[in-house]
């Protein structure tokens, strides 16, 4: 039941939509097989495979809406989930913001499926764990990590003729290496489209190097520093900022994109002119499904162009109310950069701090997108183009909007999966001025 063909999915959804007596019915069928191996203390700790398939049914009677989901597919279960959604809709009050089911869409297929990833076996996962553990055991370091892969399908249909079907795969690997005395820690993360290029044994070397190099950390005073944020370090801050790219909350006066006196800041120069941020489901490095959660077709959306707010996505309701075009929710994010690697940015830095990764980022003040969080798993002081010594971790209180006004130089973007929210991103390493650290952490 896990991976259904297009014909199988169509047969189930046709039956579901046909069962509904509501004014309209939309159904999404999704499923997959997910495998993982987790290791810690230089040993495999847990490993498993999960197969599941889910059906979500949304129906409407007039402006009354109900949604129900189920993961069983016998005739009785299909009938049950449709009736349950209908029962909920009948009992729900009318929604003044109700939007009818979307019309038939034209989807441009995106390259989300990799046969190599779909063919991963338990032995492949166990070997990946062994490839990471082996060098650490030999070097008397301690590793913990996680490999997760999946193959999936999504199909959607509604009573207005909408139809979409696509398969996808994903593979993500993260690995932390610590020194035996617990004084040094390094990390590496890899998000791949295709398992063919995955080499756990090579990746772990980065984490091992950072673990050993970070063991004799010195304490620097908290304050404002020039920093180089590796892509994994800035992706979480960018993810929080993206949450605010919504026309309605901006128009309502409750976002950093709201304008004093009313309205929004579309078109305003809010960041350094080198900042270009967009979403594109067909980007070759990070293809995502060509539709959003509602089934709206995704296209390229420019969010920031030359530092100006280039667009604010509109939900279907808000678009109708404001006389605008509705925008599908974005599925990925690309931030343009330059051509230099992180190492080349370091070489061009007189004094600064290299941040491998950030952790536990939370919103402090939505008015300014002020965020707090900490550095982790490899923080180093740079002087005259070289890493001089490891430093203790810092807590930061910083806004990505302020950060993107303080750009010194951008490097070459790489694919990362954001630590906050799981979105796939292309993010450049960034050298930034005046990044605000507010306290020291003893954590390693």
């Amino acid at each position: 039941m896990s991976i259904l063909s297009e014909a199988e999915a169509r047969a189930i959804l046709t039956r579901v939509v046909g069962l509904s007596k509501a004014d309209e019915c939309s159904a999404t069928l999704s499923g997959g097989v997910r495998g993982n191996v987790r290791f810690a203390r230089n040993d495999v700790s847990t490993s498993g495979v999960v197969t599941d398939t889910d059906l979500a049914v949304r129906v409407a009677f007039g402006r009354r809406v109900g949604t129900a989901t189920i993961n069983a597919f016998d005739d009785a279960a299909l009938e049950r989930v449709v009736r349950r959604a209908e029962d909920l809709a009948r009992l729900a009050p009318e929604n003044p913001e109700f939007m009818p089911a979307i019309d038939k869409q034209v989807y441009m297929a995106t390259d989300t499926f990799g046969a190599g990833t779909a063919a991963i076996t338990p032995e492949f996962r166990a070997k990946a764990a062994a490839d990471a553990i082996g060098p650490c055991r030999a070097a008397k370091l301690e590793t913990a990590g996680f490999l997760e892969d999946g193959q999936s399908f999504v199909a959607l249909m509604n009573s207005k003729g909408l139809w979409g079907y696509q398969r996808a795969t994903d593979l993500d690997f993260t690995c932390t290496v610590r020194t035996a005395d617990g004084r040094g820690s390094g990390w590496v993360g890899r998000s791949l489209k295709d398992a063919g290029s995955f080499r756990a044994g090579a990746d772990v070397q980065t984490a091992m190097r950072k673990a050993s190099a970070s063991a004799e950390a010195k304490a620097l005073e908290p304050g404002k520093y020039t920093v180089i944020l590796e892509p994994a370090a800035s992706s979480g801050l960018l993810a929080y900022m993206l949450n605010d790219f919504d026309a309605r909350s901006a128009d309502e006066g409750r976002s950093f994109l709201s304008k004093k006196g009313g309205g929004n800041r579309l078109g305003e120069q809010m960041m350094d002119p080198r900042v270009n941020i967009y979403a594109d489901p067909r980007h070759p490095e990070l293809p995502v499904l060509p539709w959003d959660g509602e089934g709206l077709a995704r296209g390229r959306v420019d969010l920031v162009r030359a530092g100006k707010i280039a667009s604010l996505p509109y939900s279907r309701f808000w678009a109708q109310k404001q006389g605008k075009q509705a925008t599908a929710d974005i599925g990925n994010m690309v931030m343009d950069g330059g051509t230099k690697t992180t190492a080349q940015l370091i070489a061009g830095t007189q004094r600064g701090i290299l941040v491998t990764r950030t952790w536990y980022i939370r919103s402090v003040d939505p008015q300014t997108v002020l965020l707090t969080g900490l550095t982790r798993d490899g923080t180093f002081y740079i002087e005259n183009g070289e890493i001089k010594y490891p430093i203790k971790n810092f807590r930061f209180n910083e806004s990505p909007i302020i950060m993107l006004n303080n750009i010194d130089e951008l490097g070459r973007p790489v694919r990362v999966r954001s630590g906050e929210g799981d979105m796939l991103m292309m993010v450049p390493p960034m050298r930034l001025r005046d990044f605000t650290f507010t306290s020291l952490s003893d954590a390693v």
Partner: protein
Amino acid sequence: MLAPSFFGRAIAAEALEDGIEVAVKKRLADAALNASRSAGASYCDVRVGRYLRQFVITREANVQNVVNTESLGTGIRVIADGAWGFAATNELTVDAVAAAARQATAIAKANARVQAAKVQLAPATGVGEVRWATPIAKNAMAVPVKDKAAMLLDVNAAATGAGASFVNSMLFVVNEQKYFASSDGSYIDQDIHRIWAPFTVTAVDKASGKFRSREGLSAPMGMGFEYLDGKPGDKTVLPNGVVGYKNSYDMKEDAIAAARQAREKLKAPSVKPGKYDLVLEPNHLGLTIHESVGHALELDRVLGYEANYAGTSFATLDKREAGFQYGSPIVTIVADKTQGGSLGAVGYDDEGIKTKRWDLIRQGKLVDYQAIRDQAHILGKPASDGCCYADSWSSVQFQRMANVSLLPGTKKLTPAEMIANVENGIYIAGRGSYSIDQQRYNAQFGGTLFYEIKNGKLTQPLEDVAYQMRTPEFWNSCSGICDERDYRLFGSFFDGKGQPSQVSAVSHGSSTARFDGINVISTARSLG
């Protein structure tokens, strides 16, 4: 059908349809147990789960969505050749479950080839066929959706009537129907209920471009719909008129207060950074306990099993041996999987271990951790603590936080009496921003409401307050804890941990407590 008449006709909600019959679940479980044994597993546990969730989501006068979700399936965990393996399937047939058991065994054997240390399980005696259910007075799944929606819209109208610019309110209802069987001879059927009714009220001053929000002061609870009865006797009125709630919540009253307080926040001055004595009420302090004690004393973190994601812990095993002074002598913190009304209360954990209460910090000293079956031997314990949990049939169970709570003070003391002795402080109520490092040393917390304390009196509301702390110094600065009259539960409904990430729900009880000389920063910034 426990819905009372004032909620109207109780609908035949699907949740009240018969779940899977126990005999059917036992047949599936036995198929997995037999298949894994035949495939060479030395241990097997099977969880047949039916997870029901309902969400009612509103803003202002609109019900945005009503969602019922149901997920059924079986998760099978085995030990073969000394290694763990896990497989899960949503196909509830004897053949599919047996195949999953064989798959889990094959995975375990693949892992065993690269595994150096073999799994050691603490002994557990099978408990036979038993049942346990959350003691609820009104099954929230049985309350008509129409009435739930009407209740939330009434709350929203009250908030906007009291001056809110916007209000978002929600109701989350969870029912976990869990069946556990193991090769030790346990067959445990449990019916778990939880409820949460959060809201956010926002006030906007368009002229200045400023906006401020105030969250509700409820707690998610391991209760039925009776939590929303709003019994007057379950309220605590604090010195400044802020109302705290125990086992019964008046959502409408809280929303009206929230609207007024959100508008106050628009005009409140920013805090002046510096050292303050903090008076922290239970709906705030719960999150600080959660982050700086609950997570720090999870044995899997201490040992390094979470090093790649959630992190490790500063509270290493040598500190327990040395009687590490985690907090001041008035600080006693317990773990408890049995506490009535709490989110974590169950009869048996997801390894089939009967639950209990135990001390983590006694009179300030670190005395214990939270351990499950494959960890108990590391602490020299004869048995698991019974704090293993999986958020779905499809997730592998692992060590999760029990309810971790600060015991109330033994001397009579009210929050008003506590505040009367503070010269230069801040009173903080409700949860806010929170962040802590991967070893649980350095934390930063905001809050919902902040009031300046000057010479024993609450003077004015403050804004932009966050305190930064180092865990041992913070708990050792605890100089006062109010008595049991002020004791309330805070809750976290979606606490994340593990890879793949899982959520769990956990409560933290405390009375209002005082912490001296804590570093407070101002979070005010300008984007120009």
